[in-house]
């Protein structure tokens, strides 16, 4: 009796805490795994994890909680199924921006040719450039630009300091801008 009551309660909580965020969960999984069918598997597995852990949900920021579970599930899922995609990246936040540390001296602020070029990029190129980013860069970009999370929330989802979120996001944008520019050249 006790068990069935608590699992009824868990289901009710799952319906209000997790289900509303499944679209966002799926979008995140798509961007992180790179394809829809893997994303479906990840979201289903993450949902089960969330259901089992629903009792530990603090009641604050359901979306962030769900996205953190999806993110962690993606990592373990990729490790199991596609471990070659998870190449450890040394020192990704320690500067050393592969030939482009610092900002290049550029034209005047009012007209920036690089921005103008970037503004013409089409969705397919953009998607390919994002897919080519290493996982650690891609996740911070997607959490910010697609999911609209604040730095604090991103820090919680990934489990890194807020200052690291800032520097990683800046480096990710630079990489992306570089790759779009190279694409066009």
């Amino acid at each position, binding site marked *: 009796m006790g068990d069935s009551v608590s699992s009824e309660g868990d289901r009710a909580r799952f319906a209000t805490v997790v289900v509303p965020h499944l679209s966002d969960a799926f979008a995140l999984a798509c961007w992180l795994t790179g394809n829809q069918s893997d994303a479906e598997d990840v979201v289903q597995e993450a949902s089960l994890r969330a259901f089992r852990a629903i009792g530990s949900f603090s*009641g604050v920021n359901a979306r962030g909680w769900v996205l953190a579970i999806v993110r962690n599930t993606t990592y373990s899922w990729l490790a199991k199924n596609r471990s070659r995609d998870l190449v450890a990246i040394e020192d990704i936040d320690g500067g050393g921006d592969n030939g482009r540390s610092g900002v290049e001296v550029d034209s005047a602020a009012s007209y920036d040719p690089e921005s103008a070029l970037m503004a013409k990029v089409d969705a397919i190129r953009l998607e390919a450039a994002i897919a080519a980013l290493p996982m650690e860069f891609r996740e911070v970009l997607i959490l910010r630009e697609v999911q609209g999370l604040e730095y604090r929330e991103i820090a919680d989802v990934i489990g890194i300091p807020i200052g690291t979120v800032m520097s990683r996001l800046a480096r990710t944008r630079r990489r992306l801008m570089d790759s779009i520019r190279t694409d066009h050249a």
Partner: protein
Amino acid sequence: MTNLSVSRSPDDRALLVHAYVDGELDPANALAVGRQIAADPVLAAELARAQTLREVLRDRLPRKALPPHLLPRIEAAVGLKSVGLKRLQHRQSWHALAAAAVVALAIGSASTWFVLHQPASDRIAEAIVDDHIRGLMAGPTDVKSSERHIVKPWFNGRIPQSPRVVDLAGEGFPLIGARVDVIGTTPVATLVYGRRLHVISLAAVPDAAAGERAPVPVSTKGYNLVSWSENGIRYYAISDLALGELQTFVRLFKAA
């Protein structure tokens, strides 16, 4: 508060430009970084690129929609039988589900007394949260427009009194549209605003229906809720935004 912008390398200053674009700096640092950008073409170029990239990502990336078969599969996996995608398109079914969930929670548990004895305004807050959640799942608006001269008249004939509709796009809270929620038997005008990718529902409940004033919880089911009364209307603003930003929205709405 620390001053982030002095004695930093050029690269660090460029990083701060990104935090500036994201609105993540406190006012003093935002001011300082803003000045540096104005004085330094290198930083200004970084700003222009970061802003362009943000716009391009926002406007051109394809949306990844939840495949219709996935939700039933997940519900089956956790033993949730009562929700199906079809039901999400019908508000009544969603309400029925929410009610069933509350009953399921109450039966045989120590919380029965609490559920049955909540003050009226708490039940209204609960209903508003449920409507917001339903909106996130099935689409938050019945009329979709950023134009308040379209949204306000839309309520005519649907609701006794059109709510106050203000435009806060300039402040970063664009109007998305509106819907009518039904709380108990009272139709309630709900405006929908956006903040980046977050959705804010603002429900306007006539005071008569809102009943006695009980303190409204600040956070419920993972959503933040801010409530206030104004000219016989009780407003409820709900979102998954951080509480501080939701309070900013409320302050701007009141002042508009």
